[in-house]
């Protein structure tokens, strides 16, 4: 027996070896004039940079790009040797990294995406029956009442306590406190942006101008939205993938781009619904170039029409008027091809009456994170 296994192992090893040598995919092969760059990107952009079409479009601009994923606020802490750029999901970590590295260049925002809530149709219906969500009759866009939600947090509302529908008709997965599942605001941009959004609402729809404005009262309310979640994930891709796998967290804060990408690919879970918070916050995907190579990538992402189309394919909203028009056209085309209205997207947030919170300065952000985590 021993010998048989030994021989078998050797055969497998040799077979595998031959196969591996023949079949091993070459890495991106830079041409003589191409430049190769390495950078760290938010996990929500990992698939974009992995896409062969994106690689080809970048190659057409003479760029071969290697990326690693990390949480936006982790990028500053991690060892950044040999990186040409970092590409967090919001402007604040980008500014902080720029300051840390004494960079002169201005970070570029090639595209952006508002924060939304992904949920199930059955959950959205329960929210609607309790005036926590509504659906526009003509545009079919769903909106989530942030005020109603925050009042509920204040009153420790649970799904069981919602008056409608009666207990025996509620979906079985709706149990416990009502909270949004977010990422850890210490490490991830979407978690931090959530605090920005909530603090704006708690401060009478005004951005908190200075760290001292983060009062004890605001801190306690932030804790009340964060602590029921228990331990949080480090990057936005994770809770979203958990949602896709059917994990029973009913309300997950995500980037619109994540949901839209699935809808465009016609891969969205059958009962997924997207809610726009009536006051949301926008994630400005901001690239910080450490050198000229990084700047060439930033420029390509901002002005290359082919890349712009691919950005939309991944659900991002390209910056600028041309980008907005291309995005609106794509959304319109997609929605008219989907019979059901539950995937309604709002190409123009203003028209959909979704207001946007202003994100405070990094110093205030830090104070908000510390307050939320009771540090």
């Amino acid at each position: 027996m021993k010998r048989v296994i030994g021989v078998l192992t050797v055969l497998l090893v040799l077979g595998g070896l031959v196969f591996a040598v023949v079949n091993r995919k070459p890495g991106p092969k830079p041409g003589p004039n191409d430049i190769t760059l390495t950078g760290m990107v938010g996990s929500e952009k990992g698939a974009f940079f992995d896409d062969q079409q994106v690689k080809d479009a970048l190659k057409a601009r003479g760029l071969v790009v290697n990326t690693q994923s990390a949480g936006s606020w982790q990028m500053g802490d991690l060892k950044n040797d040999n990186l040409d750029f970092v590409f967090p999901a919001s402007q604040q970590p980008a500014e902080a990294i720029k300051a840390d590295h004494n960079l002169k260049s201005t970070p570029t925002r090639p595209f952006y995406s508002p924060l939304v809530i992904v949920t199930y149709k059955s959950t959205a219906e329960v929210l609607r029956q309790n005036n926590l969500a509504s659906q526009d009759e003509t545009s079919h866009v769903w909106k989530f009442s942030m005020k109603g939600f925050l009042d509920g947090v204040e009153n420790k509302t649970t799904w069981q306590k919602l008056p409608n529908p009666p207990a025996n008709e509620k979906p079985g997965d709706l149990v416990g406190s009502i909270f949004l599942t977010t990422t850890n605001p210490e490490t991830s941009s979407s978690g931090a942006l959530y605090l920005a959004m909530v603090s704006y609402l708690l401060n009478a729809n005004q951005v908190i101008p200075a760290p001292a404005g983060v009062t004890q009262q605001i801190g306690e309310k932030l804790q009340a939205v964060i602590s029921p979640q228990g331990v949080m994930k480090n990057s936005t891709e994770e809770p979203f993938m958990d949602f896709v796998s059917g994990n029973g967290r009913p309300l997950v804060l995500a980037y619109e781009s994540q949901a839209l990408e699935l809808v465009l690919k016609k891969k969205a879970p059958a009962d997924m619904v997207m809610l726009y918070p009536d006051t949301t916050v926008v994630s400005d995907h901001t690239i910080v170039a450490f050198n000229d190579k990084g700047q060439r990538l930033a420029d390509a992402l901002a002005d290359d029409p082919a890349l712009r189309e691919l950005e939309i394919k991944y659900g991002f909203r390209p910056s600028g008027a041309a980008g907005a028009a291309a995005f609106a056209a794509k959304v319109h085309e997609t929605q008219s091809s989907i019979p059901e209205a539950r995937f309604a997207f709002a190409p123009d947030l203003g028209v959909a009456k979704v207001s946007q919170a202003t994100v405070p300065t990094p110093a205030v952000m830090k104070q908000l994170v510390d307050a939320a985590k009771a540090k």
Partner: protein
Amino acid sequence: MRRSGVRGLIAGLALLVATSVAACTSSPAPPPKTGPSDPPAASAQPGVLRVLAGSELQDLAPVLEEAQKATGVTVQFAWTGSLDGADAVSAGRTDGKYDAIWFPSNQYLHLDEGSKSKLLSETPIMASPVAFGIRSAVLGDLGWGDGSKVTWGNLAEAASGGKLSYGMADPSRSNSGFSALVSVASAFSGANAALTEADVQKATPQLKQFFTGQKLTSGSSGWLAQAYSRAERGSIGALVNYESVLLSMNKTLAADQQLTVVRPTDGVISANYPLTLLSSSAQRERESFQRLTSYLLKEDVQKRISELTLRRPVTAGVAPAAGLPTDRRHELPFPGTRAVADGLLSSYQNELRRPSRTVYVLDTSGSMAGQRLSSLKSAMGRLTGADDTRGVRRFRDREEVTLISFASKVKSTKTHSVPTGAGAQQELASINGDVQALSADGGTAVYSSLQEAYRVIQRQQSAAGDDRFTSIVLMTDGESNEGASDKDFRTFYEGLSSAQKATPVFPILFGDAAKGQLQGIADLTGGKLFDGTGSLDGAFEEIRGYQ
């Protein structure tokens, strides 16, 4: 350069192959054994990703072989428990030794502030909730129909009424055990959000009832499944494990042992198996990691993973394998602080679970003199120390510990009962006193001494009339050369009552011990052989999960 790459590939692939024939010992390079002390993995090699992982992932071997062919990336695993793995990362013991970690969950690891800078990126690969697998006949007796409406409260009631006996892995080591403990504590405290210390207090009486039904414990989910299969028909009615493990077990279980998966309706905790890149990894390995994760998330690969392992896919548009129910369960929050998590684990070990009766049969023959005896004293001494926040090592409150020292015959038998609360420290010190007083001389009568251990247990059980997790640890550095023979012991064991036979022996291989003899003892008694040749401390600590 190129040659070393090819060599690396051969070694790495051999490791991967070795994992799929884990029981055989003849492969050219066996997988690195990993106890709590996780010895260093081989140094970094091109195309090889060194991954510290939970042993559950062995079932992915075929997919990883395919991944190797498609991406050129070979996964070289070293195995350890989820929580031990988290400790290794936090303490910096993975730096430079591994490129990635891969456990059922990183939730416990996230509670450690220090871990934030250690992890570069985390990508869930598949998902499975921790559930109860209930033997179909038991489900029928309890009147639970198809099991789709059962709550944690129903399970506790059945357990405390003696109608449901189950096995569960040690929550201080295993993510499945810990997830079940958090789920049940959440349900009983009425907590609608992440557990607090007050919630744990509130849930304590019901938790105690629930754990009266736990009849099997284990440091690993693999051994738990074996123990369930070999337990006397009907004595164990259920197992706590991942839905995927329970469903996979059904493929080989006898008809009357088939398990129905029950996901309690008041909530579950799911594992999402994040493949996690360590920030200590080098650029080359980061690229390998990226290639591997992209491959594993492809739709066809996700489908294959789900069909092979019965875990749920995480890539949108991929349907779960047939047989996986699609009705959703509330996902319970995992505690948000280390204090709550460790407090819950400490309560489980010292207060909530059934207490243990633990017998150590320790070889103090002449060959143990010197370094070997000091290693033994150190390894046993560690089990009496106080520095153990979540109850991984130390003898627990309420545990009865018997030390049998033997050479040509049993030299001494000393029994200690660790009290609850303040008195525990003193008793632990007294156990350590006995350990440090051991001295080495004489021959090696392994089998006679084991027989004596079974008789000691019988006397203790009939005197106390109690209900404890009962087990024997055998540590020897040589071959049995005096007293009863292998055959005598076999006859002795066959003559025991079925209750006595349920006591497993966990032998530890050490020094010049006869591996065949020890493996035979483990197989006969339903125990498990541990290797103490690398780290005796590690072996003694690992066994704590089974006691």
